[in-house]
């Protein structure tokens, strides 16, 4: 389903599936998901808790742990399928070529290490011989890119506010200039004003680097503000994928329609209307659906029988 593109995609996910083998059977958390991202592009993945969006991100990063397992599909980064790599090869790729900004920045920094130690560890995990002075130089530059001063380097995570911690995480994620940044709900713990500023920072950094961003989240407003293209996940499947304007203006899949049309608006006060849409729309199971291109570049999942 990859449209012929002018440039080679930086990341190409094809028919990816992740299964969790449990005592009571197997759960397919991600069920045949395909998409690609062009260099410098911002792609969003929307979906509710349990839709598989975060699991897909973890699979792309090679971070699925037992009892979970990538059972099919490929993740091609810069022309190389990373699902076939050994652990050590994958470790080298993470951060250097593909970095993740985790959900809940407050928990992802080591509380007993200063900010500067995080930078030194991250940089040296990939090139052990970088000297102290060079680490310092790069760190100050990176902190500057996320609007933080040099003095932050000597602080411990608990001395930082939520917004500062998230900025430190952004700075860490770009310390090796990755081509792909995966951000999983990067602002979910922040107040709206800080959320806006952190997203601003992420965009500035991304544009400076020319990196592609995969933004994962459930806040449709945030996705509308940030991404170029939007994918919607439901029951482990990608049920819609298209240019963000096209998806917001004419959502094609019933689930996307509920998601977008039942959003509370700031224009008109009418809680009844939104609830009616949510209650009256039947969302079919996506399990056996296949993607079809309904409009140029805008794909939707339909039941296989209907598609032909």
């Amino acid at each position: 389903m990859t449209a012929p593109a002018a440039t080679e995609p930086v990341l190409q996910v094809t028919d990816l599936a992740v299964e969790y083998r449990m005592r009571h059977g197997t759960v397919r958390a991600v069920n045949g998901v395909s998409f690609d991202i062009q260099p410098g592009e911002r792609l969003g993945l929307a979906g509710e808790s349990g839709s598989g969006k975060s699991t897909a991100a973890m699979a792309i990063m090679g971070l699925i742990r037992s009892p979970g397992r990538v059972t099919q599909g490929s993740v091609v980064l810069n022309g190389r399928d990373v699902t076939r790599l050994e652990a050590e090869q994958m470790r080298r790729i993470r951060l250097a070529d593909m970095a993740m900004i985790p959900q809940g920045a407050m928990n992802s920094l080591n509380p007993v290490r200063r900010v500067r130690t995080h930078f030194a560890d991250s940089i040296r995990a990939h090139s052990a011989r970088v000297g102290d002075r060079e680490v310092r130089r790069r760190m100050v530059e990176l902190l500057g890119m996320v609007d933080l001063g040099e003095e932050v380097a000597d602080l411990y995570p608990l001395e930082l506010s939520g917004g500062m911690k998230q900025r430190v995480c952004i700075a860490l994620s770009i310390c090796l200039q990755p081509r792909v940044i995966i951000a999983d709900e990067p602002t979910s713990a922040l107040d709206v004003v800080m959320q806006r500023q952190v997203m601003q920072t992420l965009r500035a950094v991304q544009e400076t680097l020319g990196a592609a961003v995969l933004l994962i989240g459930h806040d449709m407003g945030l996705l509308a503000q940030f991404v170029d293209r939007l994918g919607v996940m439901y029951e482990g499947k990608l049920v819609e994928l298209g240019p963000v304007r096209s998806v917001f203006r004419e959502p094609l899949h019933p689930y996307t329609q509920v998601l977008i049309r039942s959003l509370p608006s700031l224009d008109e006060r009418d809680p009844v209307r939104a609830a009616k849409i949510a209650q009256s729309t039947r969302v079919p199971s996506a399990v056996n659906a296949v993607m079809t291109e309904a409009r140029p570049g805008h794909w939707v999942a339909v039941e296989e029988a209907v598609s032909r």
Partner: protein
Amino acid sequence: MTPLLEARELGQVFGTGDKRTVALENLTLSFDADTPSFTAIVGESGSGKTTLARSLLGFLRPSSGAVYFRGEDLYSTGGAGLRRFRREVQAIFQDPFEVYNPFYTVDHMLATPIRKFGLAPSRTQARDLMERSLRAVGLEPKETLGRYPHQLSGGQRQRLTVARALLIGPRLIIADEPVSMIDASLRATVLESLRRLHEDFDISFVYITHDLTTAYQVSDNVIVLYRGRVAEVGDVEQVIKQPEHPYTQLLVGSIPIADPDRPWAEDINVPEAGERELDREHACAFADRCPQVMPRCTQSPPPLYRTHDNRAVSCFLYDRDGEETVEGDVRKIFRSSDLRPDPAGGDGRRNQTDPA
């Protein structure tokens, strides 16, 4: 006319000495028993909104000021008075998972208050009451009763807690972030059920949230809190559409609108709320972040200036000649005019039958 519930000069201070944190300062507001209202209390984390909810619910004794239920001090009342309070003022909490005991079917949660408050003389009537409350919040009794909590969605579970609150026959429901843990596509149904109870049963609501958009959707009045103080208060339509306090302006302007063609305005750079406790006697709570800060903002805290019949703003920008101040007294704003857009609710949709 004695209000149903009233906070007078309510203050909450946690800790002492260097660790002293003022969570809420000098807040006065009230809810009438006879004129139902739908009030949103909006604020970020640390604004004092949950502290206010807990104080109003009788869970947190005020450090200063008092909370009155039907004219009696809530924190020194007991016995019959407290029993009446527990019937007439109900709470809905954020997490629709935590309030359930996973070992019981959901019937248990509905049956317990019926038994405790003696709401139904017979089993049949108890069943009938349960079914009516469920229908009132848009749940089908057949699909709900006899189930275990894990068999219901987050939205269904939260509507069930609304049904439980409803069957007790409250006059006021205090809902603290009732939809923030519910998936987006189900939020609308929960909010709509709150709104419907307000209109059909004349129940007043205090809707506590960090989300201005949902506050705008369901409530009629809004109180914007910032660091324990009222920043702005008034008719929700006006406050959201034409915010007057620089903080409310920043807040409204930062809402990510779900429309790619309405992006945030130009980049902003506002410092984060100070970690340091502010000098409450000498400064506006927002002075350290305010783009329009003036010298006097760090000399004394601004009072609430009345800017319209049904609005007030705590900001010196509105200190015009002869402007009336209302101190911390939100009552004066909400009493000054009827803030309900449709005062009688009067379109026949109103149903005076209390389910209890």
